């Protein structure tokens, strides 16, 4: 399966398993979603389980909080992560705090799905990676898959989780992995092990990283599309890196990170999001605080630039092979 089919399958499995699972969002019902992630689900489960909404992110998230208070397990979709901001008050002030402020009487067992990330000429409002806004909020879990297999297993875990979860889908890799070499032909998920997706129910636990490659020279901490870009750069340069696909940013798999950095002594952090106060800053601080005496070089971050996501200069902006390659050289030179 590609990632779209894997997400569709996760939703199908959960709609079938739990009558309280309810999907809502703009264009997700009859039409099946602008990325086809919910295709066929309304026809299969009916209009009260899978339905279209007015164009109101505040309404979509707010209504989902109320549905959760009733006892449903809503899975709202925000069409692009760039458009999640009108729903932020409901996410930050309400969904994230509901359990805490009611001392557990009310909970928000919802999973907000949203396509995110760039590399598709999406310009300013179809390319953003706003994960740091959510990792900064106590009470929210933030999950980002990098493969179809993970996308399904993680999404099922999110839907079953009793905490509100933000599930960001890297749309650049919906149809195939992307290695950052944008001038090469597009690849497909076909034939890859990480695209072998079981039809039925399975889960990947939240809070657990995935070791993508083995290597002693350095640790690369990354997630989403950038997992594939970092891997391609290491292969091309002949660098033996241990790449950790974090999969869940909150709660973070700190044990896996510590174990890896303590072994390699070097750490590179890669994300598409802008640099300042990005999630990479948190990762860098954690590695520095917890692995300081094992570090043989300063922790480096490769990120998007601190600008809005540009249209025509996409490949100048994107933290691709050149920027990652330079950072690896710098870390290994120390």
């Amino acid at each position, binding site marked *: 399966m590609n990632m779209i089919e894997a997400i569709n399958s996760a939703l199908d499995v959960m709609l079938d398993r739990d009558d309280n699972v*309810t999907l809502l969002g703009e264009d997700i019902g009859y039409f099946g979603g602008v990325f086809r992630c919910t295709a066929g689900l309304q026809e299969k489960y009916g209009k*009260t*389980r899978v339905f279209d*909404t*007015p164009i*109101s992110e*505040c*309404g979509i*998230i*707010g*209504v*989902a*909080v*109320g*549905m*959760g*208070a*009733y*006892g*449903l397990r*809503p899975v709202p979709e925000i069409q692009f992560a760039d458009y999640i901001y*009108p729903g932020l*008050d*409901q996410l930050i*002030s*309400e969904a994230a*705090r*509901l*359990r*805490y*402020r*009611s*001392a*557990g*009487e*009310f*909970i928000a067992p919802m999973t907000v799905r949203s396509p995110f990330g760039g590399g598709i000429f999406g310009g300013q409002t179809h390319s953003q990676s706003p994960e740091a806004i959510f990792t900064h909020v*106590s*009470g929210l*879990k933030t999950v980002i898959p990098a493969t179809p297999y993970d996308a399904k297993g993680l999404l099922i875990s999110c839907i079953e*989780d*009793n*905490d509100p979860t933000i599930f960001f889908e890297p749309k650049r890799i919906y149809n195939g992995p992307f290695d950052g070499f944008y001038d090469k032909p597009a690849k497909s998920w076909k034939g890859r092990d990480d695209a072998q997706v079981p039809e039925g129910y399975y889960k990947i636990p939240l*809070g657990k990283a995935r070791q993508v490659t083995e290597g002693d020279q350095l640790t690369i901490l990354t997630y989403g599309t950038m997992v594939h870009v970092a891997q391609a750069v290491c292969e091309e340069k002949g660098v033996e890196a241990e790449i950790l696909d974090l999969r869940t940013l*909150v*709660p*973070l798999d*700190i044990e896996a990170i510590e174990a890896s950095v303590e072994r390699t002594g070097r750490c590179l952090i890669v994300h598409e999001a802008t640099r300042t106060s990005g999630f990479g800053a948190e990762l860098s601080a954690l590695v520095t605080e917890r692995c300081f005496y094992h570090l043989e070089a300063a922790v480096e971050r490769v990120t998007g630039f601190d600008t809005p996501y540009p249209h025509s200069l996409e490949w100048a902006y994107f933290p691709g092979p050149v920027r990652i390659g330079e950072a690896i050289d710098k870390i290994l030179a120390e």
Partner: protein
Amino acid sequence: MAKAGDKEGSNRPALALHVPEPKYRPGDKVDFSHIQVPEAGAAPRPDEACEAKETYPLCDDLIRVLGDDDKAHGPWDPRLDADTLRRMLREMALTRAFDTRMYRAQRQGKTSFYMKCTGEEATSVCATHALAGDDMIFPSYRQQGCLIARGYEPEEMINQIYSNKADKLKGRQLPIMYCSKRLSFFTISGNLATQLPQATGFAMASASKGDSRIAATWVGEGSTAEGDFHSALTFATVYNAPVIFNVINNQWAISSFSGFAGAERATFAARAIGYGMAGLRVDGNDPLAVYAAERWAADRARANGGPTLIEHFTYRAEGHSTSDDPSAYRSAEERDEWPMGDPVMRLKNHLIALGEWSEEQQAKQDAELDTMVKQAQKDAEKNGILGHGLHHPFHTMFEDVFEDLPWHLQEQADQAIREREIKFPEGLKK
């Protein structure tokens, strides 16, 4: 040749920005004669199953039942029995007695904050009586009357206000941000109007499950300016959700008069019209009118007739909160001049007019309620008052952020407990 938008030679008048101004400021003589107070019983009562648009004339009217003669009039008279009327009177009086005592408790330093609902007791107590016990209430912070009408123990409320060791919310919430799932009273948020789409979502969920529960939510007129108000009403009509929106128009949002929420041009009930929703505008100080309107909306919602917006036209008789001094922005005369009077007195006088109550009984009840609240306060104080040591253990601060405690919160909890020994070697001050 002139281009489009060319200003040359224009004789257009200068534009002027309109910034609303309330009629009366501190020291002003108040004259409320411009407020239309229709005769009690004059407003027509359409059938609950009517088309939404049949209610639109009522959005500009004012439904009133209790007349100057203290008797019930017209088609909106809910014809409640005397026991129910006495119960509503008692709960409104208890709400007021509770407010009086808690306001004083804040002034005595027993807690940090309090908000009264004086003058608005009918809009919560009587509205709650029109709902079923398991209909979900999504309140704002001035609906303590809903909890009291559902029988929540005053001691529990005070425990929350004192953030003491018996506080069910474990001292996490600002005073009065109550929550009771048992009584179908949703957790109060400091963020205004967020409860409105949530109420709509709850109602949608109930409908999608084929349940019979409905949702009722409350919001001040000031907060109708929030985007959530628009989202909630849009979703409610799109999905025909069984939800009631109670807009408490008490004329003031802290220091801003209702004109800053758009009251100069249209009533708040009239907002319903644009959404295609049923709308009613009631005298919020008329306990019978409030009950009747809420009951109408509840019956309509329960019969899949869809949502209703009710504007309760009332007056915030006291300051916004213990942190507010209304004499800094409005005339002190307003409260006494308010043409719709006081809801507690109006219901009392109605019961007396029916021969079902007396001034003596009222005085006796007031004394009894005062004693009861005092006793509840004493009982609650045994569990501690704010800042006097009897609080929840430190580690509870970290619980319920998530269902399980993740490693980073565990580390921070350990730190807080370590710090306790250094910061408070004798324990928190007694």
